[in-house]
Protein backbone atom coordinates (compact mmCIF):
# COMPACT_ATOMS: atom_id res chain seq x y z
CA UNK A 1 0.00 0.00 0.00
CA UNK A 2 2.70 2.42 1.06
CA UNK A 3 4.84 1.45 -1.90
CA UNK A 4 1.81 1.76 -4.12
CA UNK A 5 1.51 5.44 -3.26
CA UNK A 6 5.14 6.13 -4.06
CA UNK A 7 4.82 4.20 -7.31
CA UNK A 8 1.77 6.24 -8.23
CA UNK A 9 3.66 9.48 -7.65
CA UNK A 10 6.56 8.29 -9.80
CA UNK A 11 4.22 7.22 -12.60
CA UNK A 12 2.56 10.64 -12.47
CA UNK A 13 5.97 12.33 -12.65
CA UNK A 14 7.02 10.17 -15.58
CA UNK A 15 3.74 11.08 -17.28
CA UNK A 16 4.55 14.77 -16.96
CA UNK A 17 7.97 14.20 -18.45
CA UNK A 18 6.47 12.40 -21.40
CA UNK A 19 4.04 15.20 -22.14
CA UNK A 20 6.73 17.87 -22.06
CA UNK A 21 8.87 15.70 -24.30
CA UNK A 22 6.32 15.97 -27.04
CA UNK A 23 4.45 12.67 -26.97
CA UNK A 24 1.15 14.21 -25.84
CA UNK A 25 -2.19 13.53 -27.47
CA UNK A 26 -2.73 17.23 -28.25
CA UNK A 27 -1.64 17.90 -31.85
CA UNK A 28 -2.05 21.67 -31.76
CA UNK A 29 0.86 23.99 -32.24
CA UNK A 30 2.41 25.76 -29.25
CA UNK A 31 2.90 29.34 -30.37
CA UNK A 32 5.31 31.72 -28.62
CA UNK A 33 4.07 35.12 -29.72
CA UNK A 34 4.76 38.79 -28.98
CA UNK A 35 2.44 40.35 -26.39
CA UNK A 36 1.01 42.67 -29.05
CA UNK A 37 -0.47 39.62 -30.82
CA UNK A 38 -2.50 38.59 -27.75
CA UNK A 39 -5.88 39.58 -29.19
CA UNK A 40 -5.50 38.66 -32.85
CA UNK A 41 -3.71 35.28 -32.89
CA UNK A 42 -6.49 33.37 -31.10
CA UNK A 43 -8.86 34.75 -33.77
CA UNK A 44 -6.69 33.22 -36.48
CA UNK A 45 -6.33 29.86 -34.74
CA UNK A 46 -8.36 29.33 -31.57
CA UNK A 47 -7.04 25.78 -31.13
CA UNK A 48 -3.34 26.58 -30.75
CA UNK A 49 -1.70 26.88 -27.35
CA UNK A 50 -0.29 30.37 -26.80
CA UNK A 51 2.48 31.88 -24.73
CA UNK A 52 2.35 35.66 -25.03
CA UNK A 53 5.24 37.73 -23.66
CA UNK A 54 7.92 40.18 -24.70
CA UNK A 55 9.64 38.89 -27.86
CA UNK A 56 12.99 39.06 -26.06
CA UNK A 57 11.75 36.85 -23.19
CA UNK A 58 10.31 34.36 -25.68
CA UNK A 59 13.63 34.24 -27.54
CA UNK A 60 15.42 33.51 -24.25
CA UNK A 61 12.92 30.77 -23.44
CA UNK A 62 13.37 29.15 -26.85
CA UNK A 63 17.18 29.39 -26.53
CA UNK A 64 16.83 27.64 -23.16
CA UNK A 65 14.92 24.83 -24.85
CA UNK A 66 11.26 25.68 -24.25
CA UNK A 67 9.00 23.30 -26.27
CA UNK A 68 7.78 25.93 -28.74
CA UNK A 69 6.56 25.11 -32.24
CA UNK A 70 6.25 28.63 -33.65
CA UNK A 71 7.97 31.91 -32.77
CA UNK A 72 6.21 35.12 -33.77
CA UNK A 73 8.04 38.27 -32.72
CA UNK A 74 7.34 41.98 -32.87
CA UNK A 75 10.67 42.55 -34.57
CA UNK A 76 13.09 40.95 -36.99
CA UNK A 77 15.92 41.07 -34.45
CA UNK A 78 15.13 38.01 -32.34
CA UNK A 79 13.86 35.62 -35.06
CA UNK A 80 16.96 36.49 -37.12
CA UNK A 81 19.18 35.87 -34.09
CA UNK A 82 17.60 32.45 -33.47
CA UNK A 83 17.85 31.69 -37.19
CA UNK A 84 21.58 32.45 -37.10
CA UNK A 85 21.90 30.12 -34.11
CA UNK A 86 20.14 27.38 -36.09
CA UNK A 87 17.20 27.25 -33.67
CA UNK A 88 14.42 28.25 -36.09
CA UNK A 89 13.66 27.93 -39.82
CA UNK A 90 14.03 31.01 -42.03
CA UNK A 91 11.74 33.74 -40.58
CA UNK A 92 9.15 35.50 -42.74
CA UNK A 93 7.68 38.97 -42.27
CA UNK A 94 3.92 38.55 -41.73
CA UNK A 95 2.79 41.99 -40.56
CA UNK A 96 3.86 45.54 -39.87
CA UNK A 97 2.80 47.91 -37.14
CA UNK A 98 3.21 51.53 -36.11
CA UNK A 99 3.59 53.36 -32.83
CA UNK A 100 1.17 55.78 -31.22
CA UNK A 101 1.28 57.82 -28.04
CA UNK A 102 -1.46 56.89 -25.58
CA UNK A 103 -2.79 58.96 -22.69
CA UNK A 104 -5.52 58.14 -20.15
CA UNK A 105 -9.05 59.20 -21.25
CA UNK A 106 -9.14 62.08 -18.75
CA UNK A 107 -5.63 63.10 -19.87
CA UNK A 108 -4.52 64.53 -16.49
CA UNK A 109 -1.30 66.00 -17.90
CA UNK A 110 -3.06 67.62 -20.87
CA UNK A 111 -0.88 65.93 -23.48
CA UNK A 112 -1.64 66.61 -27.16
CA UNK A 113 1.68 65.88 -28.81
CA UNK A 114 5.14 64.50 -28.13
CA UNK A 115 6.27 68.06 -27.34
CA UNK A 116 3.94 68.17 -24.32
CA UNK A 117 5.88 65.26 -22.81
CA UNK A 118 8.66 67.69 -21.91
CA UNK A 119 6.61 69.12 -19.03
CA UNK A 120 8.56 68.12 -15.90
CA UNK A 121 5.42 66.80 -14.16
CA UNK A 122 4.71 64.24 -16.86
CA UNK A 123 4.99 60.57 -15.92
CA UNK A 124 6.00 58.69 -19.06
CA UNK A 125 6.12 54.89 -19.27
CA UNK A 126 7.97 53.18 -22.12
CA UNK A 127 9.32 49.75 -23.01
CA UNK A 128 12.76 48.81 -21.70
CA UNK A 129 15.76 48.81 -23.98
CA UNK A 130 16.14 45.43 -25.68
CA UNK A 131 12.36 44.92 -25.77
CA UNK A 132 11.08 45.69 -29.32
CA UNK A 133 8.58 48.36 -28.22
CA UNK A 134 11.31 49.98 -26.13
CA UNK A 135 13.80 50.04 -29.02
CA UNK A 136 11.17 51.36 -31.48
CA UNK A 137 10.17 54.08 -29.00
CA UNK A 138 13.76 55.27 -28.83
CA UNK A 139 14.00 55.22 -32.64
CA UNK A 140 10.84 57.32 -32.98
CA UNK A 141 12.07 59.83 -30.40
CA UNK A 142 15.42 60.05 -32.20
CA UNK A 143 13.64 60.60 -35.53
CA UNK A 144 11.69 63.44 -33.92
CA UNK A 145 14.76 64.90 -32.21
CA UNK A 146 12.93 64.47 -28.91
CA UNK A 147 15.14 62.10 -26.93
CA UNK A 148 15.09 64.61 -24.05
CA UNK A 149 11.56 63.44 -23.14
CA UNK A 150 13.23 60.25 -21.90
CA UNK A 151 13.97 62.30 -18.76
CA UNK A 152 10.26 62.00 -17.92
CA UNK A 153 10.32 58.19 -17.93
CA UNK A 154 9.20 56.77 -14.58
CA UNK A 155 9.20 53.10 -15.57
CA UNK A 156 10.67 50.89 -18.27
CA UNK A 157 8.35 47.97 -18.85
CA UNK A 158 9.33 44.50 -19.95
CA UNK A 159 6.65 44.25 -22.61
CA UNK A 160 4.13 46.49 -24.34
CA UNK A 161 1.24 45.29 -22.17
CA UNK A 162 3.03 46.71 -19.13
CA UNK A 163 2.97 50.14 -20.79
CA UNK A 164 -0.69 49.78 -21.82
CA UNK A 165 -1.66 48.65 -18.31
CA UNK A 166 -0.07 51.55 -16.49
CA UNK A 167 -1.58 54.14 -18.83
CA UNK A 168 -5.06 52.57 -18.87
CA UNK A 169 -4.98 52.41 -15.05
CA UNK A 170 -4.45 56.16 -15.16
CA UNK A 171 -1.25 55.88 -13.11
CA UNK A 172 1.02 57.02 -15.93
CA UNK A 173 0.35 60.17 -18.00
CA UNK A 174 1.51 58.76 -21.32
CA UNK A 175 3.16 55.81 -23.01
CA UNK A 176 4.31 54.66 -26.43
CA UNK A 177 2.56 51.52 -27.69
CA UNK A 178 1.61 49.85 -30.97
CA UNK A 179 -1.56 51.15 -32.60
CA UNK A 180 -2.89 47.58 -32.38
CA UNK A 181 -2.74 47.69 -28.57
CA UNK A 182 -5.23 50.56 -28.36
CA UNK A 183 -8.44 48.77 -29.43
CA UNK A 184 -8.85 46.51 -26.35
CA UNK A 185 -8.52 49.52 -24.01
CA UNK A 186 -10.17 52.22 -26.13
CA UNK A 187 -12.55 53.04 -23.27
CA UNK A 188 -9.64 53.94 -21.00
CA UNK A 189 -7.11 55.57 -23.29
CA UNK A 190 -6.87 58.06 -26.15
CA UNK A 191 -4.35 57.46 -28.94
CA UNK A 192 -2.34 60.33 -30.41
CA UNK A 193 -0.93 59.66 -33.89
CA UNK A 194 2.77 60.26 -34.50
CA UNK A 195 4.18 61.87 -37.68
CA UNK A 196 4.52 59.24 -40.41
CA UNK A 197 8.10 60.27 -41.20
CA UNK A 198 9.12 59.64 -37.58
CA UNK A 199 7.80 56.06 -37.50
CA UNK A 200 10.13 53.16 -36.87
CA UNK A 201 10.02 50.23 -39.24
CA UNK A 202 8.06 47.75 -37.14
CA UNK A 203 8.14 44.35 -38.83
CA UNK A 204 6.75 41.17 -37.31
CA UNK A 205 8.48 37.92 -38.18
CA UNK A 206 7.29 34.37 -37.77
CA UNK A 207 9.30 31.14 -37.91
CA UNK A 208 8.89 27.45 -37.21
CA UNK A 209 11.12 26.27 -34.37
CA UNK A 210 13.59 23.60 -35.57
CA UNK A 211 13.00 21.37 -32.54
CA UNK A 212 9.22 21.83 -32.76
CA UNK A 213 7.41 18.94 -31.02
CA UNK A 214 4.46 19.45 -33.42
CA UNK A 215 6.24 20.14 -36.67
CA UNK A 216 3.27 19.74 -39.02
CA UNK A 217 0.95 21.83 -36.88
CA UNK A 218 3.65 24.51 -36.73
CA UNK A 219 3.84 24.77 -40.54
CA UNK A 220 0.05 24.82 -40.78
CA UNK A 221 -0.09 27.66 -38.28
CA UNK A 222 2.45 29.76 -40.19
CA UNK A 223 0.56 29.13 -43.44
CA UNK A 224 -2.67 30.23 -41.78
CA UNK A 225 -1.09 33.47 -40.59
CA UNK A 226 0.30 34.20 -44.08
CA UNK A 227 -2.97 33.19 -45.82
CA UNK A 228 -5.50 35.77 -47.05
CA UNK A 229 -7.80 34.96 -44.16
CA UNK A 230 -5.05 35.41 -41.59
CA UNK A 231 -3.88 38.64 -43.18
CA UNK A 232 -7.45 40.01 -43.23
CA UNK A 233 -7.80 39.34 -39.50
CA UNK A 234 -4.45 40.99 -38.76
CA UNK A 235 -5.36 44.06 -40.81
CA UNK A 236 -8.81 44.25 -39.21
CA UNK A 237 -7.16 44.99 -35.84
CA UNK A 238 -4.78 47.57 -37.29
CA UNK A 239 -1.68 45.67 -38.45
CA UNK A 240 -0.22 46.70 -41.78
CA UNK A 241 0.54 44.28 -44.64
CA UNK A 242 4.07 42.80 -44.76
Amino acid sequence: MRWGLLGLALVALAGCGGAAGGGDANDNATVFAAASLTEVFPQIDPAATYNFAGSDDLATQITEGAPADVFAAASTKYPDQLYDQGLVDKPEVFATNRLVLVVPKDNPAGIRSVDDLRNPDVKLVIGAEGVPIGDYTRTVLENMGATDVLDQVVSEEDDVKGVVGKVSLGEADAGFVYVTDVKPVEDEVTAIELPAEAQAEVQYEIAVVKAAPHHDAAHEFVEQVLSEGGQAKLQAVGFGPP
Partner: protein
Amino acid sequence: MRRPFEVLLAVSAGLILAFLLLPILALFLRIPPEDLLSQLTSQVAVDALLVSVKTSVIAHAVVLLLGTPTAYLIATRRFRGRSLVLTLIELPLVLPPAVAGIALFAAFGRAGLLGETLHAAGISIPFTQTAVVFAIIFVSSPFYIRLGIAAFEALDPALIEASRTLGAGPRRTFFRVALPLAAGGLSAASALAFARGLGEFGATIMFAGSLQGVTQTLPLAIYAQLDLDFDIALALGAFLVVVSVAVLLTVKLLPSWTRFTLISLAPSGRSD
Protein backbone atom coordinates in the same frame (compact mmCIF):
# COMPACT_ATOMS: atom_id res chain seq x y z
CA MET B 1 10.63 -4.40 7.17
CA ARG B 2 12.78 -1.84 8.98
CA ARG B 3 15.60 -1.87 6.46
CA PRO B 4 13.57 -1.07 3.31
CA PHE B 5 11.87 1.69 5.25
CA GLU B 6 15.21 3.28 6.16
CA VAL B 7 16.19 3.07 2.51
CA LEU B 8 12.92 4.70 1.48
CA LEU B 9 13.56 7.60 3.88
CA ALA B 10 17.10 8.08 2.63
CA VAL B 11 16.09 7.89 -1.04
CA SER B 12 13.28 10.40 -0.56
CA ALA B 13 15.57 12.82 1.24
CA GLY B 14 18.29 12.37 -1.37
CA LEU B 15 15.92 12.99 -4.28
CA ILE B 16 14.39 16.14 -2.86
CA LEU B 17 17.77 17.51 -1.75
CA ALA B 18 19.25 16.94 -5.19
CA PHE B 19 16.22 18.59 -6.78
CA LEU B 20 16.51 21.64 -4.52
CA LEU B 21 20.26 22.05 -4.74
CA LEU B 22 20.91 21.27 -8.41
CA PRO B 23 19.43 24.50 -9.85
CA ILE B 24 21.29 26.62 -7.28
CA LEU B 25 24.54 24.82 -7.97
CA ALA B 26 23.98 25.17 -11.71
CA LEU B 27 23.59 28.91 -11.27
CA PHE B 28 27.16 29.10 -10.00
CA LEU B 29 28.57 26.62 -12.51
CA ARG B 30 27.17 28.37 -15.56
CA ILE B 31 29.82 31.10 -15.58
CA PRO B 32 33.24 31.18 -13.88
CA PRO B 33 33.43 32.87 -10.45
CA GLU B 34 35.76 35.66 -11.62
CA ASP B 35 33.24 36.57 -14.34
CA LEU B 36 30.48 36.57 -11.74
CA LEU B 37 32.43 39.11 -9.72
CA SER B 38 33.23 41.36 -12.68
CA GLN B 39 29.56 41.37 -13.74
CA LEU B 40 28.62 42.57 -10.27
CA THR B 41 30.59 45.78 -10.81
CA SER B 42 28.60 46.69 -13.94
CA GLN B 43 26.58 49.91 -13.64
CA VAL B 44 23.22 48.12 -13.76
CA ALA B 45 24.25 45.77 -10.97
CA VAL B 46 25.66 48.52 -8.77
CA ASP B 47 22.57 50.72 -9.28
CA ALA B 48 20.25 47.83 -8.46
CA LEU B 49 22.27 46.94 -5.38
CA LEU B 50 22.11 50.53 -4.09
CA VAL B 51 18.36 50.79 -4.72
CA SER B 52 17.77 47.43 -3.04
CA VAL B 53 19.89 48.21 0.01
CA LYS B 54 18.36 51.66 0.51
CA THR B 55 14.73 50.62 0.13
CA SER B 56 15.15 47.37 2.08
CA VAL B 57 16.82 49.08 5.02
CA ILE B 58 14.19 51.84 5.25
CA ALA B 59 11.35 49.34 4.87
CA HIS B 60 12.91 47.04 7.45
CA ALA B 61 13.29 49.85 9.98
CA VAL B 62 9.56 50.58 9.66
CA VAL B 63 8.71 46.90 9.93
CA LEU B 64 10.76 46.47 13.13
CA LEU B 65 9.54 49.70 14.70
CA LEU B 66 5.83 49.05 14.12
CA GLY B 67 5.88 45.28 13.87
CA THR B 68 7.50 44.52 17.23
CA PRO B 69 4.86 46.28 19.39
CA THR B 70 2.14 44.81 17.16
CA ALA B 71 3.47 41.29 17.63
CA TYR B 72 3.75 41.86 21.39
CA LEU B 73 0.20 43.18 21.58
CA ILE B 74 -1.27 40.24 19.71
CA ALA B 75 0.85 37.69 21.59
CA THR B 76 0.10 38.94 25.11
CA ARG B 77 -3.42 40.40 24.97
CA ARG B 78 -6.69 38.59 24.51
CA PHE B 79 -9.25 40.84 22.88
CA ARG B 80 -12.37 40.61 20.77
CA GLY B 81 -11.54 40.19 17.09
CA ARG B 82 -8.01 38.95 17.81
CA SER B 83 -8.23 36.03 15.42
CA LEU B 84 -9.64 38.35 12.76
CA VAL B 85 -6.63 40.66 13.19
CA LEU B 86 -4.33 37.63 12.94
CA THR B 87 -5.99 36.51 9.72
CA LEU B 88 -5.76 39.99 8.22
CA ILE B 89 -2.05 40.13 9.04
CA GLU B 90 -1.52 36.73 7.41
CA LEU B 91 -3.44 37.66 4.27
CA PRO B 92 -0.56 39.40 2.42
CA LEU B 93 1.54 36.27 3.05
CA VAL B 94 -0.64 34.18 0.76
CA LEU B 95 -1.70 36.93 -1.64
CA PRO B 96 -0.28 36.60 -5.18
CA PRO B 97 2.26 39.44 -5.67
CA ALA B 98 0.41 40.82 -8.69
CA VAL B 99 -2.68 41.25 -6.51
CA ALA B 100 -0.56 43.10 -3.96
CA GLY B 101 0.62 45.45 -6.74
CA ILE B 102 -2.92 46.16 -7.95
CA ALA B 103 -4.09 46.61 -4.34
CA LEU B 104 -1.35 49.17 -3.67
CA PHE B 105 -2.42 51.07 -6.80
CA ALA B 106 -6.05 50.90 -5.64
CA ALA B 107 -5.08 52.41 -2.28
CA PHE B 108 -2.22 54.82 -2.99
CA GLY B 109 -2.32 55.25 -6.78
CA ARG B 110 -3.44 58.43 -8.48
CA ALA B 111 -6.89 56.98 -9.11
CA GLY B 112 -6.78 55.15 -5.77
CA LEU B 113 -8.70 55.58 -2.51
CA LEU B 114 -6.20 58.01 -1.00
CA GLY B 115 -5.10 59.34 -4.39
CA GLU B 116 -6.88 62.68 -4.19
CA THR B 117 -5.89 63.29 -0.56
CA LEU B 118 -2.26 62.55 -1.36
CA HIS B 119 -2.40 64.66 -4.52
CA ALA B 120 -3.78 67.61 -2.55
CA ALA B 121 -0.83 67.26 -0.19
CA GLY B 122 1.50 67.26 -3.17
CA ILE B 123 2.47 63.62 -2.66
CA SER B 124 2.73 61.10 -5.48
CA ILE B 125 3.76 57.57 -4.55
CA PRO B 126 3.67 55.25 -7.62
CA PHE B 127 6.97 54.93 -9.56
CA THR B 128 9.07 56.34 -6.68
CA GLN B 129 11.41 54.75 -4.17
CA THR B 130 8.65 55.28 -1.62
CA ALA B 131 6.55 52.91 -3.73
CA VAL B 132 9.32 50.30 -3.55
CA VAL B 133 9.43 50.75 0.25
CA PHE B 134 5.62 50.39 0.42
CA ALA B 135 5.72 47.18 -1.62
CA ILE B 136 8.45 45.71 0.58
CA ILE B 137 6.64 46.62 3.81
CA PHE B 138 3.43 45.14 2.42
CA VAL B 139 4.98 41.72 1.81
CA SER B 140 7.60 41.52 4.57
CA SER B 141 5.85 42.96 7.65
CA PRO B 142 3.30 40.11 7.90
CA PHE B 143 6.25 37.73 7.86
CA TYR B 144 7.95 39.54 10.73
CA ILE B 145 4.78 40.02 12.79
CA ARG B 146 3.69 36.38 12.43
CA LEU B 147 7.09 35.06 13.54
CA GLY B 148 7.35 37.81 16.18
CA ILE B 149 4.06 36.71 17.73
CA ALA B 150 5.43 33.17 17.94
CA ALA B 151 8.60 34.48 19.60
CA PHE B 152 6.64 36.41 22.25
CA GLU B 153 4.20 33.54 22.77
CA ALA B 154 7.10 31.17 23.44
CA LEU B 155 8.11 33.20 26.50
CA ASP B 156 7.39 31.68 29.91
CA PRO B 157 4.32 33.64 31.15
CA ALA B 158 5.62 33.14 34.71
CA LEU B 159 8.58 35.42 33.93
CA ILE B 160 6.34 38.22 32.67
CA GLU B 161 4.08 37.67 35.67
CA ALA B 162 7.07 37.81 38.04
CA SER B 163 8.21 41.09 36.49
CA ARG B 164 4.76 42.53 37.07
CA THR B 165 4.48 41.32 40.67
CA LEU B 166 7.95 42.68 41.40
CA GLY B 167 6.59 46.10 40.54
CA ALA B 168 7.68 46.68 36.95
CA GLY B 169 5.10 48.51 34.86
CA PRO B 170 3.99 47.15 31.46
CA ARG B 171 6.48 49.38 29.66
CA ARG B 172 9.39 48.25 31.82
CA THR B 173 8.29 44.63 31.53
CA PHE B 174 8.26 44.93 27.73
CA PHE B 175 11.67 46.59 27.42
CA ARG B 176 13.54 44.82 30.25
CA VAL B 177 12.01 41.33 30.25
CA ALA B 178 9.96 40.41 27.18
CA LEU B 179 12.15 42.06 24.53
CA PRO B 180 15.53 40.64 25.71
CA LEU B 181 14.04 37.19 26.25
CA ALA B 182 12.42 37.13 22.81
CA ALA B 183 15.49 38.66 21.12
CA GLY B 184 16.58 35.38 19.52
CA GLY B 185 13.21 34.66 17.98
CA LEU B 186 12.73 38.26 16.93
CA SER B 187 16.14 38.39 15.28
CA ALA B 188 15.34 35.26 13.31
CA ALA B 189 12.00 36.78 12.32
CA SER B 190 13.79 39.98 11.34
CA ALA B 191 16.37 38.20 9.19
CA LEU B 192 13.74 36.16 7.35
CA ALA B 193 11.52 39.19 6.79
CA PHE B 194 14.50 41.15 5.47
CA ALA B 195 15.32 38.37 3.01
CA ARG B 196 11.70 38.23 1.90
CA GLY B 197 11.72 41.99 1.34
CA LEU B 198 14.99 41.88 -0.59
CA GLY B 199 13.49 39.33 -2.98
CA GLU B 200 10.23 41.26 -3.48
CA PHE B 201 9.33 41.33 -7.17
CA GLY B 202 5.69 41.26 -8.25
CA ALA B 203 4.26 44.14 -6.24
CA THR B 204 7.31 46.30 -6.93
CA ILE B 205 7.36 45.91 -10.72
CA MET B 206 3.69 46.85 -10.80
CA PHE B 207 3.41 49.61 -8.22
CA ALA B 208 6.90 51.12 -8.45
CA GLY B 209 7.75 50.26 -12.03
CA SER B 210 11.27 49.48 -13.13
CA LEU B 211 13.75 52.30 -13.70
CA GLN B 212 17.48 51.81 -13.32
CA GLY B 213 18.89 53.73 -10.36
CA VAL B 214 15.45 54.72 -9.08
CA THR B 215 13.08 51.80 -8.61
CA GLN B 216 14.96 48.91 -10.21
CA THR B 217 15.81 46.58 -7.32
CA LEU B 218 18.01 43.47 -7.63
CA PRO B 219 15.16 41.09 -8.59
CA LEU B 220 13.82 43.61 -11.13
CA ALA B 221 17.30 44.04 -12.59
CA ILE B 222 17.61 40.26 -12.99
CA TYR B 223 14.35 40.24 -14.93
CA ALA B 224 15.35 43.21 -17.09
CA GLN B 225 18.82 41.83 -17.83
CA LEU B 226 17.57 38.35 -18.72
CA ASP B 227 17.47 39.21 -22.40
CA LEU B 228 20.00 42.07 -22.50
CA ASP B 229 22.90 40.46 -20.71
CA PHE B 230 22.27 36.99 -19.33
CA ASP B 231 25.62 36.99 -17.51
CA ILE B 232 24.63 40.01 -15.41
CA ALA B 233 21.31 38.34 -14.60
CA LEU B 234 23.21 35.21 -13.55
CA ALA B 235 25.68 37.18 -11.45
CA LEU B 236 22.91 39.09 -9.67
CA GLY B 237 21.07 35.82 -9.10
CA ALA B 238 24.16 34.20 -7.63
CA PHE B 239 24.69 37.25 -5.43
CA LEU B 240 21.14 37.02 -4.05
CA VAL B 241 21.71 33.32 -3.32
CA VAL B 242 24.81 34.20 -1.30
CA VAL B 243 22.88 36.85 0.64
CA SER B 244 20.07 34.37 1.30
CA VAL B 245 22.51 31.76 2.58
CA ALA B 246 24.06 34.39 4.86
CA VAL B 247 20.62 35.28 6.22
CA LEU B 248 19.75 31.64 6.89
CA LEU B 249 23.08 30.99 8.62
CA THR B 250 22.50 34.05 10.79
CA VAL B 251 19.08 32.71 11.74
CA LYS B 252 20.53 29.29 12.57
CA LEU B 253 23.36 30.77 14.65
CA LEU B 254 21.26 33.42 16.40
CA PRO B 255 19.44 31.34 19.06
CA SER B 256 22.67 29.96 20.50
CA TRP B 257 24.30 33.37 20.24
CA THR B 258 21.41 35.04 22.06
CA ARG B 259 21.36 32.43 24.81
CA PHE B 260 25.07 32.97 25.24
CA THR B 261 24.82 36.75 25.51
CA LEU B 262 21.84 36.50 27.83
CA ILE B 263 23.76 34.23 30.18
CA SER B 264 26.84 36.40 30.04
CA LEU B 265 24.82 39.56 30.49
CA ALA B 266 22.70 38.27 33.35
CA PRO B 267 25.10 38.97 36.23
CA SER B 268 25.77 42.56 35.17
CA GLY B 269 22.06 42.99 34.60
CA ARG B 270 21.40 42.00 38.21
CA SER B 271 23.97 44.38 39.63
CA ASP B 272 22.55 47.55 38.07
